[in-house]
Protein backbone atom coordinates (compact mmCIF):
# COMPACT_ATOMS: atom_id res chain seq x y z
CA UNK A 1 0.00 0.00 0.00
CA UNK A 2 1.24 3.42 -0.82
CA UNK A 3 1.86 5.87 1.96
CA UNK A 4 0.08 9.24 2.03
CA UNK A 5 3.27 11.15 1.20
CA UNK A 6 3.88 8.98 -1.91
CA UNK A 7 0.36 9.66 -3.17
CA UNK A 8 0.83 13.35 -2.51
CA UNK A 9 4.09 13.42 -4.47
CA UNK A 10 2.54 11.49 -7.38
CA UNK A 11 -0.40 13.88 -7.42
CA UNK A 12 1.90 16.90 -7.46
CA UNK A 13 3.87 15.46 -10.36
CA UNK A 14 0.69 14.76 -12.31
CA UNK A 15 -0.60 18.27 -11.68
CA UNK A 16 2.76 19.68 -12.81
CA UNK A 17 2.67 17.64 -16.02
CA UNK A 18 -0.93 18.70 -16.67
CA UNK A 19 -0.07 22.38 -16.15
CA UNK A 20 2.94 22.15 -18.47
CA UNK A 21 0.89 20.41 -21.16
CA UNK A 22 -1.85 23.03 -20.83
CA UNK A 23 0.68 25.84 -21.21
CA UNK A 24 2.21 24.23 -24.31
CA UNK A 25 -1.24 23.76 -25.88
CA UNK A 26 -2.16 27.34 -24.96
CA UNK A 27 0.93 28.78 -26.67
CA UNK A 28 0.67 26.55 -29.75
CA UNK A 29 -3.03 27.28 -30.25
CA UNK A 30 -2.43 30.96 -29.57
CA UNK A 31 0.36 31.08 -32.15
CA UNK A 32 -1.69 29.28 -34.78
CA UNK A 33 -4.93 31.13 -34.11
CA UNK A 34 -3.60 34.68 -34.03
CA UNK A 35 -3.39 35.74 -37.64
CA UNK A 36 -3.93 39.19 -39.02
CA UNK A 37 -7.05 39.62 -41.17
CA UNK A 38 -6.74 39.09 -44.93
CA UNK A 39 -7.31 42.26 -46.90
CA UNK A 40 -9.74 42.53 -49.81
CA UNK A 41 -8.40 41.92 -53.33
CA UNK A 42 -6.90 45.01 -54.92
CA UNK A 43 -4.55 45.88 -57.78
CA UNK A 44 -3.23 48.90 -55.95
CA UNK A 45 -1.62 48.52 -52.53
CA UNK A 46 -0.65 51.27 -50.14
CA UNK A 47 1.55 50.23 -47.24
CA UNK A 48 3.37 52.05 -44.49
CA UNK A 49 6.23 50.94 -42.30
CA UNK A 50 6.61 52.24 -38.78
CA UNK A 51 9.41 51.91 -36.26
CA UNK A 52 7.01 51.07 -33.44
CA UNK A 53 3.41 50.09 -33.81
CA UNK A 54 2.20 51.78 -30.64
CA UNK A 55 -0.62 49.35 -29.81
CA UNK A 56 -1.45 45.65 -29.51
CA UNK A 57 0.58 43.00 -27.67
CA UNK A 58 3.88 44.34 -29.02
CA UNK A 59 3.57 48.12 -29.19
CA UNK A 60 7.33 48.63 -29.60
CA UNK A 61 7.71 46.30 -32.59
CA UNK A 62 8.50 47.54 -36.07
CA UNK A 63 5.66 46.78 -38.45
CA UNK A 64 3.95 47.16 -41.79
CA UNK A 65 0.39 48.45 -42.08
CA UNK A 66 -1.89 48.44 -45.11
CA UNK A 67 -4.57 50.86 -46.23
CA UNK A 68 -7.98 49.26 -46.79
CA UNK A 69 -10.58 50.13 -49.45
CA UNK A 70 -12.05 52.79 -47.16
CA UNK A 71 -8.72 54.54 -46.72
CA UNK A 72 -8.23 53.32 -43.16
CA UNK A 73 -4.93 51.86 -42.00
CA UNK A 74 -5.16 48.24 -40.92
CA UNK A 75 -2.58 46.31 -38.99
CA UNK A 76 -2.24 43.39 -41.40
CA UNK A 77 0.32 41.89 -43.73
CA UNK A 78 -2.02 39.43 -45.44
CA UNK A 79 -2.60 40.96 -48.84
CA UNK A 80 -4.79 39.79 -51.72
CA UNK A 81 -4.15 40.65 -55.37
CA UNK A 82 -5.46 39.33 -58.70
CA UNK A 83 -3.55 36.67 -60.66
CA UNK A 84 -1.66 37.53 -63.86
CA UNK A 85 -2.05 41.25 -63.27
CA UNK A 86 0.01 44.33 -62.66
CA UNK A 87 0.01 45.38 -59.03
CA UNK A 88 0.93 48.97 -58.18
CA UNK A 89 2.47 49.48 -54.76
CA UNK A 90 3.07 52.64 -52.76
CA UNK A 91 5.06 52.36 -49.55
CA UNK A 92 5.13 55.24 -47.13
CA UNK A 93 8.32 54.60 -45.20
CA UNK A 94 8.49 56.25 -41.77
CA UNK A 95 11.36 54.33 -40.19
CA UNK A 96 15.02 55.33 -40.14
CA UNK A 97 17.73 53.32 -41.90
CA UNK A 98 19.21 50.18 -40.38
CA UNK A 99 21.21 48.97 -43.38
CA UNK A 100 21.08 45.72 -45.25
CA UNK A 101 23.00 42.73 -43.95
CA UNK A 102 23.47 41.62 -47.55
CA UNK A 103 24.01 44.66 -49.80
CA UNK A 104 22.82 42.53 -52.73
CA UNK A 105 19.22 43.37 -51.80
CA UNK A 106 19.90 47.06 -52.38
CA UNK A 107 19.03 46.59 -56.05
CA UNK A 108 15.32 46.47 -56.90
CA UNK A 109 14.43 43.26 -58.74
CA UNK A 110 11.46 41.68 -60.45
CA UNK A 111 9.67 44.95 -61.21
CA UNK A 112 7.78 46.20 -64.23
CA UNK A 113 9.32 49.60 -64.84
CA UNK A 114 11.35 51.51 -62.33
CA UNK A 115 11.28 51.93 -58.62
CA UNK A 116 10.73 55.56 -57.65
CA UNK A 117 11.88 57.10 -54.39
CA UNK A 118 10.05 60.34 -53.66
CA UNK A 119 9.10 60.45 -57.34
CA UNK A 120 12.65 59.99 -58.58
CA UNK A 121 13.54 56.86 -60.61
CA UNK A 122 16.15 54.92 -58.62
CA UNK A 123 18.13 52.06 -60.14
CA UNK A 124 19.77 50.93 -56.93
CA UNK A 125 19.88 52.02 -53.33
CA UNK A 126 22.92 52.43 -51.13
CA UNK A 127 22.41 49.42 -48.83
CA UNK A 128 23.32 51.49 -45.77
CA UNK A 129 20.29 53.72 -46.44
CA UNK A 130 17.80 50.87 -46.47
CA UNK A 131 15.30 50.74 -43.66
CA UNK A 132 13.36 47.71 -44.87
CA UNK A 133 12.70 45.69 -47.99
CA UNK A 134 9.46 44.47 -49.53
CA UNK A 135 10.39 41.09 -50.99
CA UNK A 136 8.33 38.28 -52.47
CA UNK A 137 11.10 35.75 -53.19
CA UNK A 138 8.94 33.27 -55.10
CA UNK A 139 7.90 36.01 -57.54
CA UNK A 140 11.46 37.33 -57.80
CA UNK A 141 10.35 40.67 -56.37
CA UNK A 142 12.60 42.59 -54.00
CA UNK A 143 12.45 46.32 -53.33
CA UNK A 144 14.67 48.21 -50.88
CA UNK A 145 12.92 50.92 -48.91
CA UNK A 146 14.93 54.01 -48.14
CA UNK A 147 14.82 55.14 -44.53
CA UNK A 148 14.21 58.66 -43.34
CA UNK A 149 17.23 60.55 -42.08
CA UNK A 150 18.14 60.03 -38.43
CA UNK A 151 17.96 63.76 -37.85
CA UNK A 152 14.71 64.31 -39.75
CA UNK A 153 12.25 66.59 -38.03
CA UNK A 154 8.76 65.49 -37.08
CA UNK A 155 9.47 61.77 -37.05
CA UNK A 156 6.53 59.47 -36.50
CA UNK A 157 6.51 57.71 -33.16
CA UNK A 158 3.51 55.39 -33.40
CA UNK A 159 1.21 54.08 -36.11
CA UNK A 160 -0.66 55.02 -38.10
CA UNK A 161 1.66 57.75 -39.29
CA UNK A 162 0.40 60.66 -41.34
CA UNK A 163 1.71 62.34 -44.46
CA UNK A 164 2.66 65.34 -42.33
CA UNK A 165 5.34 63.28 -40.61
CA UNK A 166 8.80 62.57 -42.02
CA UNK A 167 8.72 59.79 -44.58
CA UNK A 168 9.97 58.59 -47.92
CA UNK A 169 7.57 57.43 -50.61
CA UNK A 170 8.52 54.42 -52.69
CA UNK A 171 6.42 53.35 -55.67
CA UNK A 172 6.80 50.35 -57.94
CA UNK A 173 4.83 47.86 -59.99
CA UNK A 174 5.15 44.11 -60.29
CA UNK A 175 3.31 41.42 -62.19
CA UNK A 176 1.65 38.56 -60.41
CA UNK A 177 1.74 35.07 -61.87
CA UNK A 178 -0.57 32.14 -61.34
CA UNK A 179 -2.89 31.90 -58.38
CA UNK A 180 -1.38 30.79 -55.11
CA UNK A 181 -0.18 31.99 -51.75
CA UNK A 182 3.26 33.52 -51.57
CA UNK A 183 5.16 34.68 -48.52
CA UNK A 184 6.73 38.09 -48.35
CA UNK A 185 9.31 39.43 -45.95
CA UNK A 186 11.83 42.12 -45.04
CA UNK A 187 15.54 41.38 -45.48
CA UNK A 188 16.83 44.19 -43.29
CA UNK A 189 17.76 43.06 -39.75
CA UNK A 190 15.44 45.70 -38.34
CA UNK A 191 14.15 44.03 -35.18
CA UNK A 192 15.88 46.20 -32.63
CA UNK A 193 16.68 44.44 -29.40
CA UNK A 194 16.63 40.94 -30.84
CA UNK A 195 19.58 38.66 -31.61
CA UNK A 196 21.05 39.59 -35.00
CA UNK A 197 18.06 41.87 -35.55
CA UNK A 198 16.00 38.98 -36.86
CA UNK A 199 13.79 37.96 -33.94
CA UNK A 200 10.36 39.15 -32.82
CA UNK A 201 8.70 41.14 -35.58
CA UNK A 202 11.02 39.61 -38.21
CA UNK A 203 9.68 36.18 -37.31
CA UNK A 204 6.01 37.15 -37.06
CA UNK A 205 3.34 37.33 -39.72
CA UNK A 206 1.53 40.61 -39.16
CA UNK A 207 4.67 42.64 -38.57
CA UNK A 208 7.59 42.28 -41.01
CA UNK A 209 6.36 39.11 -42.72
CA UNK A 210 3.17 38.35 -44.53
CA UNK A 211 1.30 36.41 -47.16
CA UNK A 212 0.34 37.51 -50.62
CA UNK A 213 -2.78 35.70 -51.77
CA UNK A 214 -2.87 35.74 -55.56
CA UNK A 215 -6.42 34.85 -56.54
Amino acid at each position, binding site marked *: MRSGSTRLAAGAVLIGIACTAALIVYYVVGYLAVRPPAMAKRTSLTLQTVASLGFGPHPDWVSYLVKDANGRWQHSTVLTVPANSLVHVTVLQYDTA*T*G*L*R*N*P*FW*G*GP*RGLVGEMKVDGKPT*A*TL*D*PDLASHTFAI*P*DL*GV*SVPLKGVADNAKNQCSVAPCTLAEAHTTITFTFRTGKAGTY*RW*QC*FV*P*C*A*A*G*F*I*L*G*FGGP*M*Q*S*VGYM*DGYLHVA
Partner: protein
Amino acid sequence: MSRLTREARLIFGLWLVLSAIALPLVVLVLGPHLPPGRMSSEAGAQTDANVVLTAVCTPIVILLAVQFGYSLVAFRARPGDLEDGPPIQGHGPTQVVWLVVTSAVVVALAVWGSYTLIVSSHGAGGGQGPNPDAIPKDAAQALQVQVIGQQWNWTYRFPAYRGVETKDLELPTGRAVELHVTSLDVAHSFWAYQLGVKADAIPGVDNIAYVHPRKRGSFMIRCAELCGLWHGHMYQTGHVVTPAQFASWIRGEMKQEALNLRYLPAYSRDYFPEPLRRAG
Protein backbone atom coordinates in the same frame (compact mmCIF):
# COMPACT_ATOMS: atom_id res chain seq x y z
CA MET B 1 17.76 -36.39 -39.89
CA SER B 2 16.59 -34.38 -36.91
CA ARG B 3 13.56 -32.14 -37.10
CA LEU B 4 15.74 -29.08 -36.54
CA THR B 5 17.93 -29.91 -39.51
CA ARG B 6 14.90 -30.43 -41.76
CA GLU B 7 13.48 -27.08 -40.71
CA ALA B 8 16.81 -25.36 -41.13
CA ARG B 9 17.11 -26.77 -44.65
CA LEU B 10 13.58 -25.65 -45.47
CA ILE B 11 14.25 -22.12 -44.20
CA PHE B 12 17.55 -22.04 -46.06
CA GLY B 13 15.88 -23.20 -49.27
CA LEU B 14 13.10 -20.64 -48.99
CA TRP B 15 15.65 -17.90 -48.28
CA LEU B 16 17.76 -18.94 -51.28
CA VAL B 17 14.82 -18.92 -53.72
CA LEU B 18 13.37 -15.65 -52.44
CA SER B 19 16.77 -13.96 -52.44
CA ALA B 20 17.45 -15.13 -55.98
CA ILE B 21 14.17 -13.53 -57.06
CA ALA B 22 14.46 -10.35 -54.98
CA LEU B 23 18.08 -9.42 -55.64
CA PRO B 24 17.76 -8.80 -59.41
CA LEU B 25 14.51 -6.94 -58.79
CA VAL B 26 16.19 -4.68 -56.21
CA VAL B 27 19.21 -3.96 -58.40
CA LEU B 28 17.56 -3.71 -61.81
CA VAL B 29 14.04 -2.47 -61.06
CA LEU B 30 14.23 -0.53 -57.78
CA GLY B 31 17.86 0.57 -58.12
CA PRO B 32 17.43 3.12 -60.93
CA HIS B 33 14.72 4.86 -58.92
CA LEU B 34 16.71 5.23 -55.72
CA PRO B 35 17.68 8.82 -54.83
CA PRO B 36 19.28 11.18 -55.59
CA GLY B 37 19.77 10.22 -59.25
CA ARG B 38 22.70 10.77 -61.60
CA MET B 39 22.72 14.49 -62.41
CA SER B 40 26.24 14.76 -61.00
CA SER B 41 29.09 12.33 -60.38
CA GLU B 42 28.58 12.74 -56.65
CA ALA B 43 24.85 12.04 -56.91
CA GLY B 44 25.66 8.96 -58.99
CA ALA B 45 28.04 7.71 -56.29
CA GLN B 46 25.31 8.19 -53.68
CA THR B 47 22.81 6.32 -55.81
CA ASP B 48 25.31 3.49 -56.27
CA ALA B 49 25.81 3.38 -52.51
CA ASN B 50 22.07 3.18 -51.96
CA VAL B 51 21.77 0.36 -54.50
CA VAL B 52 24.63 -1.61 -52.93
CA LEU B 53 23.34 -1.13 -49.39
CA THR B 54 19.83 -2.15 -50.39
CA ALA B 55 21.15 -5.16 -52.30
CA VAL B 56 23.33 -6.33 -49.39
CA CYS B 57 20.52 -5.85 -46.90
CA THR B 58 17.96 -7.69 -49.02
CA PRO B 59 19.07 -11.30 -48.31
CA ILE B 60 19.56 -10.46 -44.64
CA VAL B 61 16.06 -9.03 -44.34
CA ILE B 62 14.64 -11.99 -46.28
CA LEU B 63 16.39 -14.47 -43.99
CA LEU B 64 14.92 -12.79 -40.92
CA ALA B 65 11.47 -12.56 -42.51
CA VAL B 66 11.47 -16.22 -43.61
CA GLN B 67 12.66 -17.42 -40.22
CA PHE B 68 10.09 -15.24 -38.48
CA GLY B 69 7.26 -16.32 -40.79
CA TYR B 70 8.18 -19.99 -40.53
CA SER B 71 8.31 -19.79 -36.73
CA LEU B 72 4.88 -18.17 -36.62
CA VAL B 73 3.39 -21.00 -38.67
CA ALA B 74 5.36 -24.03 -37.51
CA PHE B 75 5.91 -23.29 -33.86
CA ARG B 76 2.63 -21.67 -32.85
CA ALA B 77 0.78 -23.14 -29.88
CA ARG B 78 -2.04 -25.51 -30.90
CA PRO B 79 -5.44 -25.19 -29.21
CA GLY B 80 -5.34 -26.99 -25.89
CA ASP B 81 -1.58 -27.44 -26.00
CA LEU B 82 -0.33 -26.56 -22.54
CA GLU B 83 3.04 -28.25 -22.85
CA ASP B 84 6.18 -26.16 -22.52
CA GLY B 85 8.36 -25.80 -25.59
CA PRO B 86 11.76 -27.47 -25.70
CA PRO B 87 14.45 -25.70 -23.69
CA ILE B 88 16.36 -23.18 -25.79
CA GLN B 89 20.07 -23.77 -25.97
CA GLY B 90 22.79 -21.92 -27.80
CA HIS B 91 24.02 -23.34 -31.10
CA GLY B 92 27.70 -22.50 -31.32
CA PRO B 93 28.32 -22.96 -35.06
CA THR B 94 25.20 -20.93 -35.98
CA GLN B 95 26.23 -18.10 -33.70
CA VAL B 96 29.76 -18.08 -35.07
CA VAL B 97 28.54 -18.02 -38.67
CA TRP B 98 26.04 -15.25 -37.89
CA LEU B 99 28.64 -13.09 -36.14
CA VAL B 100 31.32 -13.65 -38.78
CA VAL B 101 29.01 -13.00 -41.74
CA THR B 102 27.34 -9.89 -40.32
CA SER B 103 30.68 -8.48 -39.10
CA ALA B 104 32.21 -9.08 -42.51
CA VAL B 105 29.29 -7.33 -44.19
CA VAL B 106 29.52 -4.31 -41.90
CA VAL B 107 33.31 -4.01 -42.20
CA ALA B 108 33.24 -4.46 -45.98
CA LEU B 109 30.56 -1.77 -46.34
CA ALA B 110 32.52 0.58 -44.07
CA VAL B 111 35.71 0.11 -46.11
CA TRP B 112 33.88 0.47 -49.42
CA GLY B 113 31.88 3.48 -48.13
CA SER B 114 35.00 5.22 -46.85
CA TYR B 115 36.80 4.65 -50.15
CA THR B 116 33.85 6.07 -52.05
CA LEU B 117 33.49 9.04 -49.71
CA ILE B 118 37.14 10.05 -49.66
CA VAL B 119 38.83 8.75 -52.80
CA SER B 120 36.44 8.11 -55.65
CA SER B 121 33.69 10.62 -54.86
CA HIS B 122 35.70 13.45 -53.23
CA GLY B 123 33.46 14.02 -50.25
CA ALA B 124 30.34 12.74 -52.01
CA GLY B 125 28.88 16.23 -52.23
CA GLY B 126 29.12 16.85 -48.50
CA GLY B 127 30.63 19.92 -46.89
CA GLN B 128 34.22 19.28 -45.83
CA GLY B 129 34.87 22.44 -43.89
CA PRO B 130 37.42 25.12 -44.82
CA ASN B 131 40.27 22.63 -45.35
CA PRO B 132 38.90 19.72 -47.35
CA ASP B 133 40.70 16.37 -47.38
CA ALA B 134 38.98 14.76 -50.36
CA ILE B 135 40.00 17.07 -53.19
CA PRO B 136 39.30 16.06 -56.81
CA LYS B 137 42.16 16.09 -59.32
CA ASP B 138 40.49 18.82 -61.38
CA ALA B 139 39.95 21.14 -58.39
CA ALA B 140 42.42 23.69 -59.77
CA GLN B 141 40.16 24.27 -62.78
CA ALA B 142 36.97 24.25 -60.73
CA LEU B 143 34.34 26.94 -61.05
CA GLN B 144 34.15 28.58 -57.64
CA VAL B 145 30.70 29.46 -56.40
CA GLN B 146 29.98 30.95 -53.01
CA VAL B 147 26.63 29.93 -51.58
CA ILE B 148 25.35 32.50 -49.08
CA GLY B 149 22.53 31.52 -46.76
CA GLN B 150 20.44 34.21 -45.12
CA GLN B 151 17.05 34.36 -43.51
CA TRP B 152 15.35 33.31 -45.79
CA ASN B 153 16.95 32.95 -49.16
CA TRP B 154 20.08 31.79 -50.96
CA THR B 155 22.30 34.01 -53.04
CA TYR B 156 25.44 33.09 -54.98
CA ARG B 157 28.73 34.84 -55.69
CA PHE B 158 31.09 34.03 -58.52
CA PRO B 159 34.61 35.30 -57.64
CA ALA B 160 35.90 34.56 -61.14
CA TYR B 161 33.28 36.89 -62.60
CA ARG B 162 34.11 40.09 -60.72
CA GLY B 163 32.41 38.72 -57.61
CA VAL B 164 28.96 39.15 -59.07
CA GLU B 165 26.16 37.99 -56.80
CA THR B 166 23.03 36.35 -58.17
CA LYS B 167 19.72 35.20 -56.76
CA ASP B 168 19.60 32.13 -59.00
CA LEU B 169 22.07 29.31 -59.53
CA GLU B 170 23.12 27.93 -62.89
CA LEU B 171 26.02 25.52 -63.27
CA PRO B 172 27.76 24.24 -66.40
CA THR B 173 28.21 20.59 -67.29
CA GLY B 174 31.64 19.04 -67.77
CA ARG B 175 33.44 21.07 -65.14
CA ALA B 176 34.18 20.68 -61.45
CA VAL B 177 32.35 23.11 -59.21
CA GLU B 178 33.80 24.15 -55.85
CA LEU B 179 31.01 25.35 -53.59
CA HIS B 180 31.91 27.61 -50.69
CA VAL B 181 28.92 27.51 -48.39
CA THR B 182 28.49 30.11 -45.66
CA SER B 183 25.80 32.08 -43.86
CA LEU B 184 25.18 35.68 -42.89
CA ASP B 185 23.06 35.02 -39.82
CA VAL B 186 22.05 31.65 -38.40
CA ALA B 187 22.86 28.05 -39.36
CA HIS B 188 21.34 26.93 -42.65
CA SER B 189 22.08 23.86 -44.75
CA PHE B 190 22.46 24.02 -48.51
CA TRP B 191 20.80 20.94 -50.01
CA ALA B 192 20.90 20.62 -53.80
CA TYR B 193 19.00 17.37 -53.93
CA GLN B 194 19.52 16.04 -57.46
CA LEU B 195 23.18 17.14 -57.39
CA GLY B 196 23.76 15.11 -54.24
CA VAL B 197 25.10 18.16 -52.38
CA LYS B 198 24.38 18.88 -48.77
CA ALA B 199 26.60 21.28 -46.85
CA ASP B 200 25.90 23.24 -43.67
CA ALA B 201 25.93 27.01 -44.01
CA ILE B 202 27.41 28.34 -40.79
CA PRO B 203 28.19 32.00 -40.04
CA GLY B 204 31.93 32.57 -40.11
CA VAL B 205 32.69 29.22 -41.73
CA ASP B 206 33.73 28.52 -45.34
CA ASN B 207 32.32 25.04 -45.87
CA ILE B 208 33.68 23.59 -49.11
CA ALA B 209 31.91 20.94 -51.17
CA TYR B 210 32.75 19.62 -54.64
CA VAL B 211 30.33 18.62 -57.35
CA HIS B 212 30.68 17.56 -60.99
CA PRO B 213 27.41 18.28 -62.84
CA ARG B 214 27.11 15.99 -65.85
CA LYS B 215 23.47 16.06 -66.95
CA ARG B 216 21.48 19.11 -67.94
CA GLY B 217 18.25 19.78 -66.08
CA SER B 218 16.72 21.34 -63.00
CA PHE B 219 17.59 20.59 -59.43
CA MET B 220 15.83 21.42 -56.21
CA ILE B 221 17.55 23.59 -53.62
CA ARG B 222 16.28 23.52 -50.06
CA CYS B 223 17.41 24.56 -46.63
CA ALA B 224 17.89 21.45 -44.49
CA GLU B 225 18.38 23.20 -41.17
CA LEU B 226 15.46 24.68 -39.24
CA CYS B 227 16.24 28.38 -39.48
CA GLY B 228 13.17 30.36 -38.49
CA LEU B 229 9.75 31.46 -39.70
CA TRP B 230 10.18 30.91 -43.44
CA HIS B 231 12.54 27.93 -43.30
CA GLY B 232 9.96 25.84 -45.15
CA HIS B 233 9.85 28.41 -47.94
CA MET B 234 13.61 28.61 -48.36
CA TYR B 235 13.73 26.72 -51.63
CA GLN B 236 14.80 27.47 -55.17
CA THR B 237 15.20 25.69 -58.48
CA GLY B 238 18.71 25.56 -59.91
CA HIS B 239 19.73 24.56 -63.42
CA VAL B 240 22.57 22.60 -64.96
CA VAL B 241 23.20 23.97 -68.44
CA THR B 242 25.78 23.71 -71.21
CA PRO B 243 29.00 25.71 -70.83
CA ALA B 244 27.82 28.09 -73.58
CA GLN B 245 24.49 28.67 -71.85
CA PHE B 246 26.29 29.27 -68.57
CA ALA B 247 28.63 31.79 -70.18
CA SER B 248 25.67 33.64 -71.64
CA TRP B 249 23.78 33.59 -68.33
CA ILE B 250 26.68 34.85 -66.23
CA ARG B 251 27.36 37.64 -68.74
CA GLY B 252 23.74 38.69 -68.43
CA GLU B 253 23.93 38.65 -64.64
CA MET B 254 27.11 40.75 -64.66
CA LYS B 255 25.44 43.29 -66.90
CA GLN B 256 22.25 43.35 -64.85
CA GLU B 257 24.09 43.61 -61.53
CA ALA B 258 26.71 46.12 -62.68
CA LEU B 259 25.16 49.02 -60.76
CA ASN B 260 24.74 47.06 -57.57
CA LEU B 261 28.22 45.51 -57.77
CA ARG B 262 29.90 48.60 -56.30
CA TYR B 263 27.98 48.15 -53.06
CA LEU B 264 28.99 44.55 -52.51
CA PRO B 265 31.82 43.91 -50.06
CA ALA B 266 35.05 42.48 -51.46
CA TYR B 267 34.76 38.76 -52.02
CA SER B 268 35.58 36.96 -48.83
CA ARG B 269 35.39 33.38 -47.68
CA ASP B 270 32.93 34.47 -45.01
CA TYR B 271 31.29 37.71 -43.94
CA PHE B 272 31.28 37.38 -40.19
CA PRO B 273 31.25 39.18 -37.79
CA GLU B 274 30.37 42.09 -40.08
CA PRO B 275 26.64 41.29 -39.88
CA LEU B 276 26.72 41.73 -36.11
CA ARG B 277 27.52 45.40 -36.56
CA ARG B 278 24.34 45.81 -38.57
CA ALA B 279 22.10 43.94 -36.19
CA GLY B 280 19.19 45.75 -34.63
